[in-house]
């Protein structure tokens, strides 16, 4: 049973209420929410940058395949064009891509955070490459296939550069680890 004190509080409950918080609370809150949202996106990107990179590769591959298949009919009509000098470009890009891949592969799996499928996708001779190579052999003079192949090389090289850049920012380069510690000592 409520005593006088409790009864008094209940009867005058509304009178115990103060006015609301100062506007600075909402201002700070709004800022926090906006920053939080941006921060979330940035941190997601930072956390999943590698996955994002692989998605870019997959999209590039898909785009190359789409480009290629869309113009397939057209390509067949253009078979008799000039002999390609794609080999030369191929040697140049392949060498550079393999160098980058070697550097990336020197990092431990944990630093890369990639599963085997994603790693396979990073390799030079992935499914897209093989499809393009096959078509190039069958249609050696086709400009569109040549362009798609060169574009494929360029995209892959750009992506590997970006991955290496990120890895170097986040981790000590694998070969430099010892030197780094020695310098510190």
């Amino acid at each position: 049973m409520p005593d006088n004190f409790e009864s008094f509080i209940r009867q005058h409950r509304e009178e115990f209420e103060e006015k609301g918080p100062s506007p600075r609370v909402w201002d700070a809150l709004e800022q926090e929410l906006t920053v939080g949202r941006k921060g979330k996106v940035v941190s997601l990107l930072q956390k999943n940058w590698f996955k994002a990179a692989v998605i870019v590769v997959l999209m590039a591959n898909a785009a190359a395949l789409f480009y290629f298949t869309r113009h397939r009919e057209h390509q067949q009509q253009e078979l008799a064009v000039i002999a390609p000098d794609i080999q030369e470009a191929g040697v140049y890009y392949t060498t550079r891509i393999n160098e980058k891949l070697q550097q990336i592969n020197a990092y431990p799996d944990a630093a890369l955070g990639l599963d085997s499928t994603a790693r396979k996708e990073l390799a030079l001779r992935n499914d897209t490459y093989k499809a393009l190579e096959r078509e190039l052999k069958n249609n050696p003079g086709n400009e569109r296939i040549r362009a798609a192949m060169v574009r494929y090389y360029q995209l892959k090289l750009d992506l590997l550069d970006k991955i290496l850049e990120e890895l170097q920012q986040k981790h000590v380069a694998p070969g430099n680890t010892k030197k780094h510690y020695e310098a510190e000592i």
Partner: protein
Amino acid sequence: MKASATNLNQTPLAEYIVERCKKGDVRAFRELYDAYSAAMYNICLRMTNNVSDAEDTLQEAFIQVHRSIHKLEKESSISAWIKRIVVNHCLNTLRKKKVYFEDVEDVEIKAEEGIDEAQFTWTVAAVKSAIHTLPQGYRTVLNLYLFEEYSHREIAEMLGITESTVKTQYMRAKEKVRQIVKQQNVTR
């Protein structure tokens, strides 16, 4: 502000606002904040006992509301849900200030002799002032029971103490308030 919070609870408008909040609509969140901030700020003020801590706690609590609103189920009471988040944040603020809640011996609290409530006047200002001066533990229990209307059992769970300790603390808090208000009447 308190009235708007009550009106908004479990209405189609509230559901609409919550749904928009769930989709990340900041304007809808502002509406939710406008409806509940005053009532929730009062909880923070009573619990932390100072404006600066109350505002900081309110801000942190609403950040939590924003983060967790997707978990709010349709049938749930929005005000009860927000209130619980706010109260938890208030308790965290107190814990950061090294306020701990511990069990006490279950002793019978006797009213101080000579306190005849009929002989003095209760005023809102006097009660507020008396509660303000209570030790933190007493004040927390008294606020949660009397103003936030949680049961002794709920308070015990929140503070991690026994129900009997809550009852004892509450009785002591009430007695202390009576003494302070009586003193104020005498010195008036």
